[in-house]
């Protein structure tokens, strides 16, 4: 079991590391992640949402449906714990 787990871990590591070779370097301002979608957030967010904190603007406005999902996830966890553990005597 240990041995199998070790093989699985090695394979995953190899796959992950192999993929990093083509990645843009750390802090590269010309990487796709910094040039494709995000510049629009930085340039527009303050003007369109009047919120200087861009993270908040993206979190609760541009991608607000994700945040709704996030809130539902934690609500689900709360109800799940209530259901699994709560016992009345």
């Amino acid at each position, binding site marked *: 079991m240990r041995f199998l*787990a070790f093989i699985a871990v090695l394979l995953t*590591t190899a796959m*992950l590391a192999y993929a990093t070779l083509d990645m843009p370097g750390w*802090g*590269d*301002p010309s990487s796709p*992640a910094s040039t494709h979608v995000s*510049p629009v957030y930085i340039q527009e967010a303050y003007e369109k949402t009047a919120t200087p904190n861009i993270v908040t603007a993206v979190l609760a406005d541009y991608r607000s449906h*994700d945040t709704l999902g*996030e809130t539902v996830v934690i609500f689900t966890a709360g109800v799940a714990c209530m259901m699994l553990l709560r016992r009345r005597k």
Partner: protein
Amino acid sequence: MEIMDFIISKYNYWMYIIIMMIGFYAMIAKTNLAKKVVGMNIFQTAIILFFISTASKKGATIPIIQHGHGEAADIIHAAQYMNPLPHVLMLTAIVVMVSTFGVAIALLIMIYRKYNTLEEDEILEILKIENGR
């Protein structure tokens, strides 16, 4: 010196891979159920570090726009500020992680109530005896 540059630009990914694999190994190889949950947490934390490391830009500051009171901001250059999107995604992922952790701990408590142990092999022994009956 090219090799040094290469390593410096990639070492953050390799570090997170090492942390992630520690967690992954704990999840699949450890026989103590609580250790599996801890491994799960390490794994998810490593993913969060990975995402956050993709957000950085050299020479950029945190994504909060400099602003006066009530005035419009100056012209904003995208290169001045870090990429906000990975931060947003990871705020969501942190909540998911906390939630999974809570449910997993609740399940551990239920398992402990039933078998009085969290060692997987001991539980399997108990199950074998139950099956034999």
